[in-house]
């Protein structure tokens, strides 16, 4: 599934430029990618069984003899710590400070889609120490033995700072391979001063997407999972990982009906389109809502911004993780870095100064963030609460057939038939 991701938010445009330039080489780089995966033949390959985690079907990922965790009590290596992350998803100062504290160099490499990142790591041509995967690829990463199991002796902050439910998440029971990084919801962002009605005033909040007064100013996220999921929600379907063709057909038809109703547009610039007035309603990631105030034109108050997420927490939720690739050259140092980001102060600084997507820390509640003036009071709903983790609906790993089903529906909508 070609997914964009909230992480693209801050530098979406800059990243877009790079991608555009890279587009020219896309075909040739595809060649290298192919060469790297060894030019497989046909048929004889039997895929390993994927363990598709669901909240009601938690998964404890297997450990493998040939992929052991590192011993406890080792000194951190002195080599360069190599980080592989989304663009604009880590505070540069956090990397610098960590480097200073441990006397090492820290180097960042970025990717623009999870599939691109996995392709690169699975090629074996790279040896990153720290990687930021999404739970919807977890099983593939584990059975493909791309990640190494974590030694919790190095990660005391996990138990100290993180919400208990996320310390032992259903997609990776016991946090065997990952620790949580950020958590976000997907709701509806809007310009309160432009819209005629707001989602919370509608009996079905998702109906706002069809509000004809928004013609040309209504955006959905350009993401093949997020956008169809809100179509399902509108129709009371909460299984956001459905592989039922009827559901996908329904979502597709709902999406297509938006073309005529409001000439729906697609973007991942929710964080700037709404404050700059290009969009009046934009399906939005909560982290984008948190950063939106800084994109308001001068003289416009933050009260024009709104973010709706179901108050009962029954909406779309997602989180990101940090992991250590199996091929890491500096695994001990990498553990130290994970623990560093889980530190209450460092994690908070990283969020408040730069990333905008909050870490699931016990100490971060909506009231505190409003008091700290990180989030204006009218955007309080963009702060994720621990209870949301239990009530929200996670977009998770699908079977290959399910992925194709979603992608075909999405591609057909995007073709604008």
């Amino acid at each position, binding site marked *: *599934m*070609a*997914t964009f991701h909230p992480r693209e938010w801050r530098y979406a*445009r800059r990243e*877009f*430029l790079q991608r*555009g*330039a890279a*587009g020219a080489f*896309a*075909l*040739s780089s*595809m*060649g290298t*990618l*192919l060469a790297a*995966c060894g*030019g*497989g*033949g*046909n048929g004889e*390959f039997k*895929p*390993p069984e*994927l363990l598709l985690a669901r909240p009601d079907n938690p998964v404890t990922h297997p450990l493998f003899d040939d992929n052991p965790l590192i011993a406890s009590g080792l000194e951190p290596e002195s080599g360069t710590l190599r980080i592989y992350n989304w663009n604009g998803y880590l505070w540069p100062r956090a990397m610098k400070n960590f480097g200073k504290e441990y006397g090492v160099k820290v180097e960042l490499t970025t990717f623009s*889609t*999870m*599939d*691109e990142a*996995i*392709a690169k790591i*699975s*090629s074996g041509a790279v040896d990153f120490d720290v990687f930021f995967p999404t739970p919807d690829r977890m099983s*593939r990463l584990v*059975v*493909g033995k791309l990640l190494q199991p974590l030694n919790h002796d190095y990660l005391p902050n996990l138990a100290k700072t993180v919400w208990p439910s996320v310390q032992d998440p259903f997609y990776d029971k016991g946090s065997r391979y990952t620790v949580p990084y950020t958590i976000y919801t997907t709701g509806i962002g809007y310009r309160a001063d432009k819209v005629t009605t707001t989602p919370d005033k509608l009996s079905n909040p998702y109906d706002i997407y069809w509000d004809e007064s928004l*013609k*040309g*100013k209504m*955006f959905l996220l*350009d993401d093949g999972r997020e956008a169809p999921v809100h179509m399902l929600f509108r129709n009371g379907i909460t299984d956001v990982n459905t592989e039922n063709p009827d559901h996908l057909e329904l979502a597709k038809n709902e999406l297509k009906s938006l*073309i005529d109703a409001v*000439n*729906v*547009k*697609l*973007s991942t610039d929710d964080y700037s389109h709404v404050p700059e*007035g*290009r969009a009046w309603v934009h399906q939005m990631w909560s982290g984008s809502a948190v950063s939106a105030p800084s994109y308001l034109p001068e003289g416009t108050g933050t009260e024009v911004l709104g973010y709706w997420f179901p108050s009962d927490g029954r909406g779309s939720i997602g989180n990101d993780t940090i992991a250590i690739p199996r091929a890491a050259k500096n695994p001990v140092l990498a553990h130290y870095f994970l623990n560093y980001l889980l530190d209450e102060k460092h994690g908070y600084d990283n969020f408040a100064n730069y990333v905008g997507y909050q870490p699931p820390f016990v100490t971060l509640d909506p009231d505190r963030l409003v008091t700290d003036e990180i989030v204006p009071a009218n955007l309080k709903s963009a702060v994720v609460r621990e209870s949301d983790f239990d009530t929200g609906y996670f977009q998770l790993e699908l079977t*290959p057939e399910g*992925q*194709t089903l979603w*992608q*075909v529906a999405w*591609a*057909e909508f*995007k*073709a*604008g*038939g």
Partner: protein
Amino acid sequence: MAKPERRLGGRRREALWAALALPGIVWLALFFVVPFYVILGVAFGTVDPTFQTPRPTWNPLDWNTQAFDFVIDGLVSRGGVFRHVFLRTLVYVAISVVLSLAIAYPVAYFVARFGGRWKGLLLLGLIAPFFISYLMRMLAWINLLQDDGWVNDVLLWIGILDAPRNWLDGRASSVILGMVYGYVPFMILPLYAFLDRIDRSLLDAARDLGASPLQAFRLVTLPLSVPAILAGCVIIALPMFGDYYTPDLLSGSPKTSLVGNQINLYIRGGQQIPVGAALVIVLMLLLAFLLAYYVFATARAQRRLSG
């Protein structure tokens, strides 16, 4: 044109000329034939279910035509998904090419005929904005076209519009405008190069024989510039067919998405990378068809001119 004189040792010389083509052949093989075969392999191959990376099939006997069937079905079946996108792309490119020609021809003509000693400077001035990357210029258009942007300001000031228009609401005209603006210099340059070389004495002769300036243009200059017009059209049409960022930036609406957007969607990830590769090949076949027409048409134009 006189044939080059054959001298003794000509055969060895011929071998030398042939050898000089070698770097070009190697280049083509390395950067066209091999990558093209890779795309074929991907289009007829499978995808690794774990890592979702393409697993190309190199042996044509083992080719899996599933992706192609999917693309062909989307093209030929009634209401097929890809049919709309291909048609839309064709229409957008055709309109953009015609508009580009309408802009580029007078400009190139003016510079070639009346530029005088300012020719160099005029050309430089025309091309200067294009030192900036294509994407930056498209991003600049977003600012110009937005509700309170300069385009609306100017149109309101002149009185063409009563209220600001939302040019970025996902309309085709904005996408076409972007494409024309983005590619027009590549039309101007070949036209200029050709028009500049037209022998003035031919025009003088036409005038001497009683043709009005308009007739001279219609009967002499225009027919002479047909090959340049065709070359310019081909040069800008080829990249336009693969464009996906102009509609993304200036519209974002599914109503204006092009073949490039579908290719991008499928190639970026997931289980259907072969579909993306198959779309690439179908698009290439279409372009090859257009190029064949171009070769045929220029040959015909040349024959007519020399005949």
